[in-house]
């Protein structure tokens, strides 16, 4: 069964080819079958492969499969080859599993769209590219997937191509991530020049041998990889594209801009953890970037009016937690948060999509309200998602993953106490903005009359994801609460265990957890106080407008868009305004010179035969005279 590994990315690719080549000849039902079926088949194959993987490799080492030699020339040997270990298997499972649920959801959500076949074609292509990214054995193949998901993201953000703003958002996403990709590519050039090898494992082994910890080259390469990861994962300073990326259809936001693609950066860093371990300074940078992003994004999420933008900022914020975990060396914690986050964030997006769907594409939360009674399924699942995101203790998965990260931050030798305080404050903000959303959308009086509840194809994914958002956390529970270590055992071969400071006992862990719990609950409570309709503060504040300058600053994501507009976009535009080739001027001048010269010479050509005869005679005499001399 392990031999079937190659089928996992190929199945969605086949789906893409079928839909792209004869999508216009299929009926909607057939399109949905092909689109969902190919991803579903990939998910089933993943399950088979995983079962076989566990049986063949009880210690979960790795399995490699080479399809053919991609490039094999002049010292460069790169294969189309897959590498399956615990880490990539986790990613594949999430991509195909959650991907299938989102495809199923889209079958109904997009049912009345003109570009039904196009939508599923892009989605299948995305899944194929994402699987290539995570299964790649070498960095060049990883780069193929990396760019492939970028392209699909571009296509899906601009899916409704008639709106020029959507197109701008799509271009912005592609170009900003492309900046990161270019840095990643330069990192590949350096690695290849050093080691004439691009295999992820071998390069890292060679790097560990050749470079001492903290060597300049290791720092530079790690930094370049980090820039790549930052671009893809929408972290500071390349985070500006993600809020605009919400222009795409909601299932796209769920799949690409929440569950899978934006976590590719996390995967990359986890995959290259040997390299990053050689560059402790870069690791610190990762932690600080993660912290700053999570705080900035969480504060921006507080004041957004568009339901999807709130979720977009929350995604940035949650990925900030993952980066924070990576930065302090808690690799497994980061991947655990990735797992829980992709469950509850996909759930939140899909539930939000169901709200938007029933409100006829209304996305402004100030025009919603009171949907609790009309959309009970959506309400309960959304509530579970929001609870998981804010980390409601004991019953939600988000609590366990976030707690693990914060505990690692607290006890890691390469972290600082203020980072932990920042992250805990972030947890408070998370509770605040998640429940602001709940109270705004589902409580109070209805401002827009909703249509019916979504149908079965949309409800089933919601329920499954809600179930997962509650239960996935039980895979890993802290010492103080049951001490389950299924997840970290599972990843133990692929990722190193987290180093903890010595001499930290259980009581301090319990105290730390209490602080986190209190922060999350405080956030929710504050949200209830501030935003629950009928609460004291809400009533007093309702009359006031919200155009205070600090609010506008937060709504614009701390003004990064305006800053980049000033510093990069406008100078660039003014550079490209003049479409004339300056170098052409030189040649124009040459041509003008030649023209004036010949104009001057042509005065001698009078057209008078006698003048010609005279000049011939004079010329002959002069020549004869010259000869005579």
């Amino acid at each position, binding site marked *: 069964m392990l031999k079937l590994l190659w089928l996992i990315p190929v199945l969605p690719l086949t789906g893409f080819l079928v839909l792209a080549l004869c999508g216009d000849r299929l009926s909607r039902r057939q399109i949905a079958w092909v689109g969902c079926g190919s991803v579903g088949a990939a998910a089933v194959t993943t399950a088979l492969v995983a079962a076989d993987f566990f049986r063949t490799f009880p210690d979960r080492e790795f399995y490699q499969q080479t399809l053919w030699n991609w490039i094999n020339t002049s010292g460069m040997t790169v294969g189309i080859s897959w590498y399956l270990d615990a880490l990539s298997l986790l990613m594949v499972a999430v991509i195909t599993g959650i991907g299938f649920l989102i495809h199923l959801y889209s079958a109904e959500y997009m049912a009345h769209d003109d570009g039904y076949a196009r939508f599923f074609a892009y989605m299948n292509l995305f899944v194929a590219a994402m699987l290539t990214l995570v299964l790649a054995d070498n960095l060049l193949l990883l780069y193929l997937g990396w760019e492939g998901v970028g392209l699909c993201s571009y296509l899906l953000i601009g899916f409704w191509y008639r709106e020029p703003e959507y197109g701008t958002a799509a271009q912005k996403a592609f170009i900003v991530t492309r900046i990161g990709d270019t840095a990643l590519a330069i990192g590949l050039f350096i690695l290849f020049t050093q080691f004439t090898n691009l295999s992820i494992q071998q390069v890292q082994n060679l790097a560990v041998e050749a470079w001492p910890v903290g060597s300049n080259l290791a720092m530079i390469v790690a930094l370049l990889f980090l820039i790549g990861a930052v671009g893809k994962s929408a972290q500071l300073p390349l985070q500006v594209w993600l809020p605009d990326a919400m222009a795409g259809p909601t299932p796209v936001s769920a799949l690409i801009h929440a569950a899978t693609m934006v976590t590719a950066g996390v995967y990359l860093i986890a995959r290259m953890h040997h390299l990053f371990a050689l560059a402790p300074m870069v690791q610190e940078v990762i932690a600080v970037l993660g912290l700053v992003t999570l705080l900035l994004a969480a504060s921006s999420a507080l004041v957004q009016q568009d339901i999807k933008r709130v979720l977009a900022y929350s995604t940035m914020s949650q990925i900030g937690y993952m980066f924070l975990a990576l930065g302090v060396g808690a690799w497994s914690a980061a991947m655990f948060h990735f797992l829980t986050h992709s469950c509850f964030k996909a759930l939140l997006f899909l539930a939000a999509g169901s709200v938007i769907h029933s409100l006829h594409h209304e996305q402004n939360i100030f025009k919603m309200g009171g949907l609790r009674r009309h959309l009970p399924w959506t309400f309960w699942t959304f509530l579970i998602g929001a609870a998981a995101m804010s980390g409601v203790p004991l019953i939600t998965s988000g609590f366990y993953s976030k707690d693990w990260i914060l505990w690692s931050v607290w006890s890691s030798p390469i972290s600082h106490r203020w980072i932990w305080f920042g992250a805990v404050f972030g947890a408070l903000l998370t509770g605040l903005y998640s429940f602001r959303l709940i109270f705004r959308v589902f409580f109070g009086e209805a401002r827009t009359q909703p249509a019916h509840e979504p149908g079965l194809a949309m409800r089933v994914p919601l329920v499954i994801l809600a179930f997962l958002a509650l239960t996935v956390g039980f895979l890993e529970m802290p010492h103080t609460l049951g001490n389950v270590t299924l997840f970290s055992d599972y990843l133990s071969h692929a990722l190193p265990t987290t180093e903890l400071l010595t001499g930290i006992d259980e009581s301090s862990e319990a105290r730390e957890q209490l602080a986190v719990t209190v922060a999350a609950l405080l956030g929710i409570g504050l949200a209830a106080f501030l935003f629950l309709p009928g609460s004291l503060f809400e009533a007093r504040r309702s009359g006031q407008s919200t155009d205070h300058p600090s609010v506008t600053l937060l709504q614009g994501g701390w003004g990064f868009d305006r800053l980049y507009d000033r510093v990069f976009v406008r100078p660039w535009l003014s550079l490209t305004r003049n479409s004339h080739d300056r170098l052409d001027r030189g040649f124009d001048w040459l041509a003008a010179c030649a023209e004036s010269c010949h104009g001057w*010479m*042509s*005065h*001698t*050509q*009078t*057209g*008078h*035969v*006698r003048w010609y*005869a*005279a000049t011939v*005679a004079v010329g002959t005499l002069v020549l004869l005279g010259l000869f005579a001399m």
Partner: protein
Amino acid sequence: MLSTPALVLAIVLFGLGLIGLLSRRNILYMLLSLEIMLNAAALAFIAGGARWGQADGEVMFLFILTLAAAEVSVALGIVLQLSHRFRTVDADALCELRG
């Protein structure tokens, strides 16, 4: 020697022809002057042939004679066409090739 006066005569004839060519505006007269210049050159060949006792001079003379005949027939044809089309035989009036 005999050839010197003959050469002097040829030079004088050539000069006369050139002056005629440059001063006359009527194309017919210009052709006449051209003929004189050609014949001056031919005379120089004859003189040269006589000087060296070679037949080449006479051969060249015959060449020039045929050339002159051919040239005149073509040139007169052109002159006829010119006077027919432009109603003039004034060389200065015909300057359409001015640059």
